[in-house]
């Protein structure tokens, strides 16, 4: 469940999820361990440094997104949704990868995105005003989600809209 959350969160932030791997090797399986490590190192080598593989955002953009994502994953809302997924799994007694994928994708990731987008908006706008499309590109989320996060911040009085671009209030 945690692994699935990490994979989907990485994808969400513009990182190839193949950069993360979870494998099992018992204490007696040294040859298998060597095989796993060698295989993983080679696959990461093939991907190249962070931010250069196909479809990945540049390194500083990833850094900004990860800053917000770590904070978002710390937020009570996302922790609660993780707990709810665990509860849901126990209730249905269906621990298949497909079910986990569906529950995480349906509950945790939307909550995580919401928290991350609003956090990243605050830091991005602290550096100066910006238009919606620029913000959405940098944050790496659909414009609808960024728009609704912006609307929520405007409602709270933290952000103001001026001539099509957004600035921090006050």
């Amino acid at each position, binding site marked *: 469940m945690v692994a699935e959350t990490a994979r989907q969160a990485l994808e969400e932030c513009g990182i190839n999820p193949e950069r993360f791997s*979870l494998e099992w090797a018992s204490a007696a399986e*040294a040859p298998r361990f060597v095989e796993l490590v060698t295989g993983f190192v080679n696959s990461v080598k093939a991907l190249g440094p962070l931010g250069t593989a196909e479809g990945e955002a540049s390194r500083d953009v990833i850094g900004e997104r990860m800053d917000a994502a770590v904070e978002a994953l710390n937020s009570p809302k996302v922790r609660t949704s993780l707990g709810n997924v665990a509860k849901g799994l126990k209730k249905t007694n269906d621990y298949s990868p497909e079910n986990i994928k569906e529950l995480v994708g349906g509950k945790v990731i939307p909550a995580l995105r919401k928290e991350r987008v609003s956090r990243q908006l605050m830091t991005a706008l602290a550096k100066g005003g910006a238009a919606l499309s620029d913000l959405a590109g940098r944050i790496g989320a659909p414009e609808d989600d960024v728009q609704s996060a912006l609307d929520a911040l405007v409602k709270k009085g933290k952000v103001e809209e001026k001539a099509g671009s957004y600035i921090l209030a006050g």
Partner: protein
Amino acid sequence: MAQEGYNPHILGFFCHWCCYAAADAAGVSRYQYPPNIRVIRVMCTGRIDGRFLLEAFKVGADGVFTGG
């Protein structure tokens, strides 16, 4: 995009009882494996949280290997 001689920084989370012991055994039996992994030993794979994984990428790891 792989450059010649490029050495990725990979962070490894190893369970004390499984993968860490396997790594130890691999060392004792002189198996060769790439030195790119920086290991963090945890007492159990279940201790690992999504935050640790994202934090690793935040500070610039090119990959994260979790061994249970």
